[in-house]
């Protein structure tokens, strides 16, 4: 497209050949970023009709009669520049790339469209924005970059998939993760690892290879993806060779990462003081004591040192690209080895890519995008992935619960352990149940290694002018090898003398699409239309086993000798899509726009009569600024472009698994006999989940694009919601749920995007991008007569999905501080009565009325299921990003800020940090209640008390505002001068220093309010949809500093 336009310019200006006499101006046009000569740049004298274009070496010459005047330089993809003609005859100019115009073309599915003509709602992010970031997968860098797109990094575990939501949570039971299309192939997403080493499938794609990301948000843009479009569609286009000389680019960085905002804990002396005080308060003898080593020094352990570290990372990407009239190529290789701040956590990726396009005959073009990657994830058990929150071997938890007065090592260097598989006693008389984390980080291993080929091949044939047939065969083959080993000394492997689990999963998908595409211009009418058919088949199978009981402690791998073996990680499944689709778009004079698209999807997972569903969307647009009456008005000088657009459509979500319609019986064992049992209550009436999306918006451009504002309002109405409808457990239905179409929910909100070129001089440029989005979600109907759906995080329930409230609202028992008279925690029961609680009293007398007629009398115990109330919504009401880019001569500075808020976070870890068992506590516990009249939020300490703090059930005292502002990215760069570089044969070089997550501004008491231990999980016990915004025993996030180099040859 760009090339085509470029050629058009060439024609245009050759036609208008210049003629004059006075003098000749010459010069060279280069790219500002890389210093390379720019061919095909149009050069014209302002006010005159003549002009020329630069040659392949970037040189031009133009003749003019004028003695003064202004030369205008313009080229697609670059910001136009004017320079006055001075006395000399040479005018050189460096054009800077225009990030906005680079994405002038959006990829809307099976076709592309000029951004000016888009009437749907599409957010585009240039690959440039992902460059040089210390990320594992591209979507981590999208936070704050696109309106309506909310990215929440769950925690600091490397390659842990971020929560990725486009215009809200669009499902209750199904995945709300958008459909990701890479070069036309719907790729596998999500955490593909089966152990603690998170393995985001999108981490296999090198961000450096990405040219652009287009996020289709409304139904009109996404309806062409039909049943898979409800969560939004993210279309990734990888880089292609550009016409001109062969370019070689190297991008590399090294960096260091550290955990940030670790919660201060009690030291050894404080721990002994606090724990013994709690024992004395219930009449027990002190049981915790300081320990001295033989040399008299006191044991003082900071367990953070046995969980976190300062880590170093490196990343390298090298690519070659170029093109001539017949062939374009882009070849890249990459290597990255990121070490996490968590001990033993790393992400290592090796990848290669070849993108080729070749004009075979005059009318036939063939091409391929072929990529291979190998990704190796390593991690300890961090307790921070979905489902792990209450693991007793999670490193995030161990670092805060282990006793600081006990050493990880004995004085002889051996591990400090007791006989029953926990850390040794030290001088204490009460053992901690928790294992010694030093043993776990040293001896346990988890790896998840993926081998991935994402590739397509296509042939495109132009049948007649404007009509092209294209056939594309794509595949995504993802093979994952998961290996874990648990040692025999401590932790999970203790009771079975060590063990290893390995499994291997093959995921294979092919996708064959055939489309017929027409486009034509008839006078003032432009028409585009296409139809297509597509088949897609996905198969996955996995096998593996667990081995237990190492025969010799030397054994640390699955293949070694163990005493038992049992199957593990067996999976088998397949599904198929058959689809027919088409779209049409029309405009009159680029003034009035009309588009419509339709898709009929068949899915194998539905029952015979329900397999097919129809989806579609339509949009209209009106470019008011193209109207003659507007062009003539004075306003058009300032407000250069106004376009209104609106769309409506119906799309679906079909993440229902492979066989939800079927009633199934699974063969199993009873001892050694076959035992067949009911394993799935199917639902033959199950239908497509549908999302009706409406969108209206306006695009405003001021001062010829210097400033632009896009505003959108959207309303997604999700009905026919597929819910794993809860069944009364007494029915005995497997899993206590049946997948069924019940329930309704909506998401609505405003989106604002502002782009501004504040200052644009030769020496100094400053541009700003702001995105701001609002989101209101409300559940309006649920299954089983609007029965509440509870969101559990492992062993704890702190979220509820209730009609009239946002999905996954925080749900806790209300507390009202600490009674100053007694130092007891005050609860509020469902009758509004205040109850004092003391664990020091007999069971029946633990709860007593605080005030009123019954003050001091025994009260019924708090029942979390009955007394809990909704404490706030857990999904942000507003979020966005503010990017400022400065360039002064050779220096550039980027400050990227993201913000989010309006939500509450359940800080469950704080319950643990104040638990009055043998667990260590946060330093704030030193403010515990000790004297009558004292005002504090930490109750009188009672040994064994796990109720006052919130461990026994979730409480409102541990709920905090989720508002935050983060300096996510701060980068300072310097572009080396051309004069130095040319001697070295280097055409451009930039060095930079960068920081990620430099600063968090927030009132949240935990390490990072951007947190979600349940991530994208859809598992009932730890669903990211049903239980978002939970911070439970998770590792913190990291702060990264990098130094990098970009070189072009």
């Amino acid at each position, binding site marked *: 497209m760009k090339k085509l336009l470029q050629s058009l310019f060439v024609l245009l200006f050759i036609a208008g050949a210049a003629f004059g006499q006075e003098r000749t101006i010459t010069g060279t046009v280069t790219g500002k970023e890389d210093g390379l000569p720019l061919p095909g740049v149009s050069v014209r004298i302002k006010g005159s009709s003549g002009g020329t274009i630069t040659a392949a070496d970037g040189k031009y010459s133009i003749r003019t009669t004028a003695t003064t005047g202004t030369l205008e330089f313009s080229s697609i993809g670059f910001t136009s520049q004017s320079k006055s003609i001075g006395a000399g005859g040479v005018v050189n100019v460096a054009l800077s790339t225009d990030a906005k115009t680079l994405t002038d073309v959006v990829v809307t599915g099976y076709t592309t469209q000029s951004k000016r003509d888009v009437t749907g709602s599409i957010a585009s992010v240039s690959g440039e924005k992902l460059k040089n970031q210390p990320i594992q997968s591209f979507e981590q860098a999208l936070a704050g970059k696109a309106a309506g797109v909310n990215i929440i990094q769950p925690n600091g575990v490397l390659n842990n998939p971020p929560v990725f939501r486009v215009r809200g949570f669009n499902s209750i039971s199904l995945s709300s993760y958008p459909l990701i299309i890479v070069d036309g192939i719907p790729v596998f997403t999500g955490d593909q690892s089966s152990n603690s080493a998170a393995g985001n499938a999108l981490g296999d794609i090198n961000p450096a290879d990405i040219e652009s990301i287009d996020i289709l948000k409304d139904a009109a843009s996404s309806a062409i993806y039909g049943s898979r479009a409800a969560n939004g569609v993210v279309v990734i286009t990888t880089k292609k060779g550009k016409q001109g000389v062969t370019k070689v680019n190297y991008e590399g960085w090294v960096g260091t990462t550290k955990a940030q905002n670790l919660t201060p804990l009690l030291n050894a002396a404080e721990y002994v003081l606090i724990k013994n005080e709690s024992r004395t308060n219930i009449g027990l003898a002190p049981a915790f004591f300081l320990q001295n080593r033989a040399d008299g020094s006191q044991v003082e352990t900071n367990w953070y040192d046995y969980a976190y570290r300062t880590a170093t990372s490196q990343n390298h990407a090298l690519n070659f690209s170029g093109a001539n009239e017949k062939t374009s190529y882009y070849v890249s290789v990459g290597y990255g080895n990121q070490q996490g701040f968590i001990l033993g956590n790393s992400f290592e990726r090796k990848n290669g890519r070849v993108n080729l396009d070749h004009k075979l005959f005059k*009318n036939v073009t063939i091409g391929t995008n072929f990529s291979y990657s190998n990704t190796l994830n390593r991690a300890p058990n961090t307790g921070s992935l979905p489902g792990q929150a209450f693991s*007793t071997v999670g490193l995030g938890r161990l670092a805060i619960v282990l006793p600081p007065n006990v050493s990880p090592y004995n004085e002889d260097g051996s591990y400090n352990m007791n*006989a*029953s*598989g*926990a850390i040794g006693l030290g001088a204490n008389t*009460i*053992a901690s149940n928790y294992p010694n984390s030093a043993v776990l980080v040293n001896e346990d291993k988890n790896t998840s290694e993926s081998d991935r080929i994402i590739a397509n091949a296509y042939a495109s*044939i*132009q049948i007649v002018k404007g009509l092209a047939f294209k*056939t594309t065969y794509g595949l995504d083959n993802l093979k994952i090898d998961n290996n874990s080993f648990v040692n025999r000394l401590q932790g999970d492997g*203790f*009771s*079975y*003398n060590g063990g290893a689990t390995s499994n291997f999963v093959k995921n294979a998908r092919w996708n*064959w699409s055939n489309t017929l595409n027409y486009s034509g211009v008839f006078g003032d009418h432009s028409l585009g239309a296409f139809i297509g058919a597509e088949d897609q088949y996905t198969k996955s199978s996995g096998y593996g086993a667990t081995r*237990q009981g190492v025969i010799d402690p030397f054994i640390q791998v699955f293949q070694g000798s163990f005493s*038992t073996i*049992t199957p593990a990680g*067996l999976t*088998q499944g397949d599904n*198929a899509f*058959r689809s027919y689709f088409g779209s049409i778009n029309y405009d009159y004079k680029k003034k009035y726009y009309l588009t419509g698209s339709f898709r009929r999807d068949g899915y194998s997972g539905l029952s015979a009569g329900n*397999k097919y569903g129809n989806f579609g969307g339509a949009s209209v647009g009106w470019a008011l600024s193209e109207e003659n009456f507007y062009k003539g008005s004075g306003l058009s000088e300032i407000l250069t472009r106004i376009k209104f657009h609106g769309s409506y459509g119906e799309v679906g979500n079909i993440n229902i698994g*492979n*066989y939800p319609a*079927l009633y*199934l019986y*699974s*063969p*199993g064992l*009873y*001892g050694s*006999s*076959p*035992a*067949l*049992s009911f394993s799935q209550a199917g639902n033959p009436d199950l239908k497509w989940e549908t999302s009706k999306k409406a969108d209206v918006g306006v695009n405003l451009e001021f001062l010829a694009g210097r400033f632009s504002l896009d505003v959108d309002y959207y309303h997604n109405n999700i009905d026919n919601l597929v819910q794993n*409808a*809860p069944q*009364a*457990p007494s*029915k*005995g239905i497997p899993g206590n749920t049946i997948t*069924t179409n019940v329930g309704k929910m909506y998401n609505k909100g405003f989106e604002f995007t502002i782009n501004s070129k504040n200052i644009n001089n030769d020496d100094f440029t400053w541009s700003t991008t702001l995105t701001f989005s609002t989101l209101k979600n409300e559940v309006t109907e649920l*299954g*089983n*007569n609007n029965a*509440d759906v*509870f969101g559990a995080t492992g*062993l704890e329930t702190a979220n509820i999905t209730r009609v009239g409230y946002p999905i996954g609202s925080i749900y806790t028992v209300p507390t009202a501080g600490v009674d100053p008279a007694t130092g007891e925690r005050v609860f509020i029961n469902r009758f509004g009565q205040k109850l004092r609680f003391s664990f020091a009293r007999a*069971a029946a007398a633990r709860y007593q009325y605080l005030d009123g007629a019954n003050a001091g009398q025994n009260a019924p*115990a708090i*029942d*979390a*299921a*009955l007394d809990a109330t909704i404490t706030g919504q857990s999904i942000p009401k507003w979020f966005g990003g503010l990017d400022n880019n400065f360039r002064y001569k050779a220096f550039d500075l980027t400050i990227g800020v993201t913000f989010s808020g309006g939500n509450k976070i359940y800080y469950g870890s704080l319950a643990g940090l104040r638990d009055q068992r043998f667990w260590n506590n946060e330093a704030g516990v030193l403010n515990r209640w000790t004297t009558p009249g004292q005002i504090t939020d930490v109750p009188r300490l009672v040994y*064994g008390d796990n109720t006052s703090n919130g461990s*026994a*059930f979730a409480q409102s005292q541990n709920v905090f505002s989720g508002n935050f502002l983060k300096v996510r990215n701060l980068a300072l760069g310097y572009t080396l001068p051309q004069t130095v570089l040319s001697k070295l044969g280097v055409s451009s070089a930039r060095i930079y220093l960068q920081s990620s997550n430099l600063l968090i501004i927030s009132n949240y008491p935990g390490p990072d309010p951007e947190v979600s231990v349940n991530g994208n999980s859809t598992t009932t016990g730890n669903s990211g949809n049903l239980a978002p915004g939970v911070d439970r025993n998770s590792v913190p996030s990291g702060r990264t500093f990098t130094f990098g180099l970009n070189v072009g040859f």
Partner: protein
Amino acid sequence: MKIKINNKLKYLFIAAPMVFASSCKKDFLNTAPQTALPIEDAFSNPDRILSQVNGIYAGVKNGQFYGGRYLIYNDIRGEDFIVNKPNGVTGLDTWRFNVTSGTNEVVNLWGAVYAAINRANLVIEGVAANASILTPVVSKQYIAEAKFLRALSYYSLLQFYAKPYVTDNGASLGVPLRLKGEKDLTGNDLKRSTVAEVYTQILKDLNEAEPDLALTLPATRASRNTAIALKTRVYLSMGNLASVVTEANKIVSATAPFAATTGTPLKLESNLATVFGGAYVGNASATEVALTFPMADLDAPGTQNQLAYYYNVATNGAGGNEEFFLNPTGIFANAAFAAGSTDARKGLTAVSGANTYLTKFKRPSPYTDYVPVIRYAEVLLNLAEATVVSDPTRSIALLTAVRQRSNPGYVFPAADLLPANLKNTILAERRIEFLGEGLRAPDIMRLGLGFVAKSGSQGTAPAIPFNTAGYIWPISSTEIQNNKLVVQN
């Protein structure tokens, strides 16, 4: 733009596969799993129907239920165990009477028992609908086994979620009685039947099962004597001593050596250690277990459900996790466990560190000890207890048989056998004999006793007097949320 004809043909060749692909694979959208059967095939032949009967056993044997946790909860609620690993996941709150309706023990046990009940109901209906595939005798037998397991499941529910029958002759609320197979979206709401109504159903199922059950079967499945043995337990829980005697007499000979004379050859094993060897089922001529649930490497109780994991020592490769140790002031203070005692049951304990642990269950990971459900020793002591007043001589003979099997030379002090003390002596014998086998809390409850306070270095548990707060568990919170007719305790 000009196009040659042959070029056009070329395009057709390229386009043809697309049309071909779309038309030839008619079954493209018909997929099915290769690891699970569609419901239509579930009762299609006798082997599969038998496999489904086994499926009910497998359901009852779930690690959350009879495969481990049901027994563990019943023992640790009692006074004979002290928590060593205060872990909320491994029964801490059950031990210290701190559960709420949302506690995992409360939710998971409820769910596991009803899942088993639904399997039984589906088999009862499925066998009836497919009776033509089976002989009448076999189809009756399968239904009888399903009813037996349903009865065992309902009996188990009552021990946690309802007040003991003795409270008010069963007038208080029991549990919802689900008697038909559930597989669709309907029928969430069902009220709780009374304790008496549930017991009536349990006895109805057992009485109907008794004649239809096989006369003999390996101890891993219920036979006629198994149903009779369970009835002695059920009637004892109801305080119906006469019926205990009636039922027990069907399988207990009048005089020692006590044995069942018909059906499965129930008899005390001469050496108790044999019963707890790990995979005990007895043999064709004698077995002590009326029912035991088998385990295998590929059919293990599952993580943190295993008896040996909770009770056994960690040392010497035993693989236990030392979760609970024997309370020095519980039954472990009995002379049978004292230093120098020659009682074989003392041999089923071991010291680790400062504490003594129960080693009855001893197979290391994946913990494949067979789970004893009903032992003949229990039938004997049930009968002994039922005949304390009506036939003290026989009662003493039964008690002595159990004691002397483990301590052959032992003679009870005369005082222990006095009419006023005999029952207590029998009750103490039950605690010694069935330590760790899940009988203690039901015994406390049927006797109208309270739970006594317990304490150890890792925690304390309060005393819970009879029928006071915390005495029974609340109904599972998920049931409350989804069954509008159910009333919380």
